[in-house]
């Protein structure tokens, strides 16, 4: 039987083995122990099986996330396959693909590889050629500084499923993962057309493709031909004059095209080879460029780096906001212990009396890795807060991610309805941002046009509402854009005495026992009226990542400005 020390040592070796961190000497000692001791052997097998099971569950979890993010626009059968069947399809389809390739000798190899995959596959429920316009064929998985071209109709958001059609990128880099398995990074300015799960056309710009074995046959059409992948990493660039370049980093590709006299141009390129195709389709050899294409790892690093940079900029701004003269209450939700039940007010005005008391909610991750947020899931979840002085001017600001709107809508902040100026700020069940205010004995309600559409569920959004008791205006803002202004009837002040964050109180037409379903990771109240420019800046600094296209961009400031 193993001693406690031997067991501890064994687990230490196993952990370092799994992280590829075990020295040769230790490998030798592990081998000897496993050989000699049946108990050690069983622990080894059990631990390595845990390692395999964790990979399985991690992929399953990733598959579910992708599935959720594609929501109801996807072909549910196809995506539902992904976590389980795609690896299987790889095994079976790839086997049959080779069968098709070899059984007929060289002649069959001339057939397009995609066709041979589709024809021989029994694992897919539908043939790969019959792509419906609304079918998801790829997923937008990473981005750095993406700006879509002016007039581009497709402006996917991070995590969206992509349908057949054009993508026009003005700047930045976007990573797309085709459902057949190829990963492609397009660097702007670029124009690419997504055709099916294993095919695209590059009209302009630069593309880098990593094609695993499962996706062999991935095809990119160029102005005068097409590149068919034979299991590889390759780069392409198409210039405005119609010329293009093909670089192979690993494996091999086949270029097949015609020149402008109709002659066939066919080249098979292997690792380290490159060709240039002039606008007439004539090819000539080219030197490989030295690492000027962005790879997946670099993109991932830059993406994470980018989110850290964003977080740092936001942290700087937090300090400024906390010192802002008009800041009455500011919860940054940052740097709080996971067990903490006090939500710290960052302003120095209340001497702790404006700190929130967390009831029920759990701490979770906010807009960036490492940033805190509170998650509201149960009907009693809430944060109690108190701002005793009424305000005749105010701006309410929150970063929110809703899991669902709920039957009663989503409460943001509600104060005790006993006091004049008691406020209820919420999103109603139809997605309108609503400010209710108690004026005398009645409640006034100021609501926006529909702001919160279904596609915003599950995404961080920046909400703001301004109240100007002097000039009698209420303004609603989403992601830094104003999309609703209303004239105030009678209300003169706004009060947050005995307020609840993320929970209803019984103002008019709202149920008391409901909480928000989702997360909040920033909330502030200012005693001044912020304009659109200021709120836009706040949104820009606080948005989770570059390349996010918020609803604000889709909703132009259609309403008249103040005083007009």
């Amino acid at each position: 039987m193993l001693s406690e020390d031997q067991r501890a040592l064994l687990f230490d070796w196993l952990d370092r083995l799994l992280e590829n961190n075990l020295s040769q000497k230790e490998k030798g000692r592990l081998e000897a122990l496993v050989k000699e001791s049946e108990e050690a052997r069983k622990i080894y097998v059990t631990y390595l099986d845990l390692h395999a099971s964790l990979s399985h569950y991690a992929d399953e979890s990733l598959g579910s996330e992708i599935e959720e993010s594609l929501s109801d626009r996807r072909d549910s059968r196809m995506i539902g396959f992904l976590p389980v069947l795609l690896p299987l399809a790889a095994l079976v389809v790839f086997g049959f693909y080779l069968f098709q390739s070899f059984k007929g000798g060289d002649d069959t190899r001339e057939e397009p590889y995609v066709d041979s995959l589709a024809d021989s596959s029994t694992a897919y429920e539908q043939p790969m050629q019959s792509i419906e316009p609304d079918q998801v064929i790829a997923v937008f998985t990473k981005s750095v500084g993406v700006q879509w071209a002016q007039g581009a109709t497709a402006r996917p958001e991070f995590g969206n499923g992509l349908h057949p059609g054009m993508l026009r990128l003005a700047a930045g880099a976007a990573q797309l993962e085709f459902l057949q398995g190829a990963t492609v990074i397009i660097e702007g300015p670029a124009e690419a057309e997504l055709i099916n799960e294993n095919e695209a056309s590059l009209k302009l710009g630069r593309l880098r493709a990593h094609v695993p074995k499962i996706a062999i046959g991935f095809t990119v059409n160029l102005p005068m031909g097409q590149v068919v992948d034979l299991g590889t990493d390759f780069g392409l660039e198409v210039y405005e004059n119609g010329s293009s370049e093909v670089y192979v980093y690993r494996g091999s590709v086949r270029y097949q095209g015609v020149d402008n006299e109709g002659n066939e141009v066919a080249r098979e390129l292997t690792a380290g080879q490159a060709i240039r195709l002039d606008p007439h389709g004539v090819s000539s050899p080219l030197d490989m460029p030295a690492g000027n294409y962005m790879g997946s790892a670099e993109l991932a690093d830059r993406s994470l780096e980018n989110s850290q940079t964003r977080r740092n900029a936001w942290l700087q701004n937090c300090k400024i906001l906390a010192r802002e003269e008009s800041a009455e209450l500011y919860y940054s939700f940052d740097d709080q212990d996971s067990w903490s039940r006090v939500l710290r007010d960052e302003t120095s005005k209340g001497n702790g009396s404006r700190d929130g008391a967390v009831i029920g909610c759990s701490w979770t991750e906010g807009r960036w890795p490492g940033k805190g947020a509170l998650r509201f899931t149960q009907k009693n979840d809430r944060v109690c807060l108190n701002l005793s002085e009424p305000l005749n001017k105010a701006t309410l600001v929150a970063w929110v991610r809703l899991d669902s709107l709920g039957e009663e809508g989503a409460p943001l902040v509600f104060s005790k309805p006993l006091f004049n100026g008691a406020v209820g700020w919420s999103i109603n069940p139809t997605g309108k941002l609503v400010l209710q205010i108690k004026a005398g004995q009645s409640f006034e309600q100021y609501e926006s046009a529909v702001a919160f559409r279904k596609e915003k569920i599950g995404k961080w959004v920046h909400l703001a509402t301004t109240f100007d008791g002097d000039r009698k205006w209420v303004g609603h803002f989403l992601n830094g854009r104003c999309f609703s202004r209303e004239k105030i009837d009678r209300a003169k002040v706004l009060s947050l005495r005995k307020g609840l964050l993320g929970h209803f109180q019984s103002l008019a037409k709202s149920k008391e026992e409901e909480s928000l379903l989702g997360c909040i990771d920033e909330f502030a109240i200012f005693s001044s009226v912020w304009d659109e420019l200021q709120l836009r800046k706040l949104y820009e600094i606080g948005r989770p990542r570059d390349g996010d296209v918020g609803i604000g961009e889709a909703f132009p400031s259609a309403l008249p400005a103040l005083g007009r």
Partner: protein
Amino acid sequence: MEYAPQDRSTELVQLMMKNQRKIFAYVLTLVPTRADAEDILQEASLTICEKFSDFSPGTNFYSWACQIAYWKVRAARKKYATSKVLFNEEVMEVIANTRLEMEPELDHRHGALNACLQKLNERDRRMILTRYESGQNVKAAALACGRTIQGAYKALTRIRKTLFDCVSLELASEMP
């Protein structure tokens, strides 16, 4: 070279669906690096397709497939010396046999692990699942959870041990 005729392809798909995870786990026990194990699994899968006509319906597909996988691991050992495969052939064989003997228990452990993952707090669960996503590593898990790399190594060791103990406890509590 013969391949499964079309009429047996459905049977092959079903058997692979049912056993794919376990075959991968079997390979990973002998080749702990995921990418290497996936390469070997892919090679084994091709041979499984190729040899499927030799497989007798009604017999144990998993054992049959593992034999093919085992030979692929052995071949990899010869091809890449010791860079992919951890142990010498003698030890590899006893481990493969131990694994096959333990299959029923390992099946139970796999099921129990899901329940144990749900018991982790969100940050730990996120960290371990990020680490194990395909193509990810400790650095990615560290960044995703706002930890230093060193901190992530320590956390992953702790989380794995917690899960290992939790699964053992779950199994013990299921025993009559």
